[in-house]
């Protein structure tokens, strides 16, 4: 790496010590990742179970770290504080209520999903939908959505790694390749890392990552506010900046879009952004994988009660964006343009001694790398199980499945790279919101179906399709007032309410209304709703239940991953 970096050192502000520490920590972690593939190894990484699910041997603690990894990503460290820095509380602080109400929501449905998944060997939400409705098309819809919606979320992680590398002084220069060099380095690291080690690498590194992150967070939230005059000064500076922003916007003939505390025009936006994000998060393939790999139904609920501790720290991190305002941080990219995404790395570089800046950079970079790896693996697994094996090659061998998964984990990252290069990365938090618009449309098919089979599979499918189109079109039409790019934001006027709201929630309402209407009609006409291979007991099953243990043993040697062998509705085999 150093050979590529040195020629640029002359004209960019490389922070030598910080970069050295960053590279050293990164090296240690990478070695640990590669060694991870040797530890606790089962039949080699040639089967999908081994590569994609770590051999399903993860206990409560590792599950906790994997789940925590879903929250502590570049989203937390880079995107949310950047949004706070740039436009204030509505754009950024909604992440706090989002990560609070997340847990009551998953408490309600995740235990049921866990139980039914363990009874039938489901690994993805698409598996469940397939079994519940005997519907390949609805299952395909869920799988495709999971695959596509993960892309912008991974893109957000790439932006995070890129931000660190850029502030550390890598990249810059005139030609196109050098300009985006940090991005390509980030991509290459991620790809090599995931491809070689599968889920074992991020699971092992998650420990290192969390220790580094906690260290940096604790130091940052204790040390930094005192350095800039305390919280009074921080909130004062933030209020001044937001007021000045709004005054400038009005002068330029634009709508004021910055906020210190949400004004009356932003209540709906704030609430729907929080609610939509919360309902969306545990629909992503990687969140489902992390939850399902826990060893007990109760672990999921216990974690739901304990995980909100993460949200507190998330709030403090969000406020670091305002600490940067008080500190007068100037996030200027190597191209000389201001870039809000650089604000936290820049704040750290300005305020910390170089060696600790290096530690903080490593924490952010590894904190983006681990979730990105988990996300791409989960998305690839979904593709393999529910698209490749279901539609393209039914008789695929385990080795072929693993190979396709590895390949797809590269494809999903390549598309993520396309997102970064083509969309507006000034507002990285929007990547996550864009993914949320899509993935939330699988919520009715998955979560409603956990509780009832009143909904009709075609109603759910139609609701999904219309909502996907609506959400995408609406998001495309949001134009960034500064840059003029499409996909400039994720809020739009809610029809009939004339208030700004998160597009995902509006689309979700359309989705549900359509699903209800069409289901009512089809149920009245007695159109077949497919065979249900699950029974009521499946939704309450506990891990140590002897019947479940027997099932799991049976599933372990089973060739097909799911399905109802005897073809009788409501009668899953092997009990």
């Amino acid at each position: 790496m150093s050979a590529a970096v040195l020629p640029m050192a002359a004209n960019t502000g490389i922070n030598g010590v910080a970069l050295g520490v960053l590279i050293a920590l990164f090296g240690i972690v990478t070695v640990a990742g590669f060694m991870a593939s040797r530890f606790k190894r089962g039949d080699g990484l040639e089967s999908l179970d081994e590569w994609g699910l770590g051999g399903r041997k993860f206990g409560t603690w590792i599950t906790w770290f994997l789940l925590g990894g879903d929250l502590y990503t570049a989203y937390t460290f880079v995107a949310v504080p950047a949004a706070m820095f740039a436009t204030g509380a509505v754009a950024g602080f909604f992440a706090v209520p989002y990560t609070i109400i997340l847990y009551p929501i998953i408490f309600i449905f995740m235990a049921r999903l866990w139980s039914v998944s363990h009874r039938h060997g489901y690994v993805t939400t698409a598996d469940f939908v397939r079994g519940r409705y005997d519907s390949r098309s609805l299952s395909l819809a869920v799988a495709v959505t999971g695959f596509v919606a993960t892309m912008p979320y991974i893109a957000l992680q790439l932006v995070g790694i890129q931000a660190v590398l850029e502030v550390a002084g890598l990249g810059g220069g005139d030609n196109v390749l050098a300009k985006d060099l940090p991005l390509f380095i980030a991509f290459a690291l991620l790809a090599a890392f995931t491809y070689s080690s599968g889920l074992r690498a991020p699971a092992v590194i998650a420990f290192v990552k969390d220790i580094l992150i906690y260290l940096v967070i604790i130091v940052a939230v204790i040390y930094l506010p005192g350095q800039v005059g305390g919280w009074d000064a921080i909130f004062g500076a933030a209020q001044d900046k937001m007021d000045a922003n709004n005054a400038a916007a009005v002068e330029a003939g634009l709508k004021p879009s910055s906020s210190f505390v949400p004004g009356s025009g932003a209540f709906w936006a704030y609430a729907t952004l929080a609610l939509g994000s919360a309902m969306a998060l545990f629909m992503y393939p990687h969140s489902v994988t992390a939850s399902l790999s826990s060893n007990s139904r109760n672990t999921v609920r216990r974690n739901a009660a304990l995980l909100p501790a993460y949200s507190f720290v998330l709030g403090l991190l969000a406020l670091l964006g305002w600490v940067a305002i008080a500190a007068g941080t100037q996030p200027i990219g190597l191209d000389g343009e201001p870039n809000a995404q650089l604000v936290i790395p820049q704040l750290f570089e300005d305020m910390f001694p170089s060696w600790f800046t290096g530690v903080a950079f490593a924490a952010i970079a590894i904190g983006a790398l681990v979730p990105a790896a988990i996300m791409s693996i989960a998305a690839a697994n979904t593709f393999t199980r529910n698209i490749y094996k279901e539609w393209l090659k039914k008789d695929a061998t385990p080795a072929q499945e693993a190979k396709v998964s590895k390949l797809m984990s590269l494809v999903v990252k390549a598309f993520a790279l396309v997102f970064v290069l083509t969309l507006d990365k000034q507002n990285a938090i929007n990547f996550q919101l864009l993914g949320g618009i899509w993935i939330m449309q699988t919520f009715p098919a998955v979560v409603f179906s956990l509780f009832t089979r009143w909904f009709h599979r075609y109603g759910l499918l139609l609701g999904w399709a219309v909502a996907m189109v609506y959400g995408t079109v609406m998001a495309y039409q949001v134009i960034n007032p500064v840059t003029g790019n499409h996909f400039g934001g994720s809020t739009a006027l809610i029809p009939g309410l004339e208030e700004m709201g998160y597009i995902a929630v509006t689309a979700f309402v359309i989705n549900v209304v359509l699903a209800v209407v069409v289901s009512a009609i089809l149920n009245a006409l007695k159109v077949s709703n497919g065979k249900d291979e699950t029974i009521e007991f499946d939704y309450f099953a506990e891990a140590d239940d002897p019947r479940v243990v027997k099932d799991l043993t049976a599933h372990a040697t089973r060739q097909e991953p799911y399905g109802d062998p005897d073809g009788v509705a409501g009668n899953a085999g092997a009990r």
Partner: protein
Amino acid sequence: MVAAGVLLAIPVVALMAVPTYARVEPELFGFPFFFWYQFLWVFLCSALTYTAYRLTLAARKPAKGDDR
């Protein structure tokens, strides 16, 4: 089980009601109300969810006849 459902609904409803807390006063340790109120809900939500967890465990016990 109904009680558990209510406990879980409380934080969602409280935090969706943005107009009830979108203001600056009263401040606490320099934090405007809007911010410290939401931080407070982190702990309230955790407590409510944990209570709901205990309730569901208790509700399962007699029904399943095991000692978990």
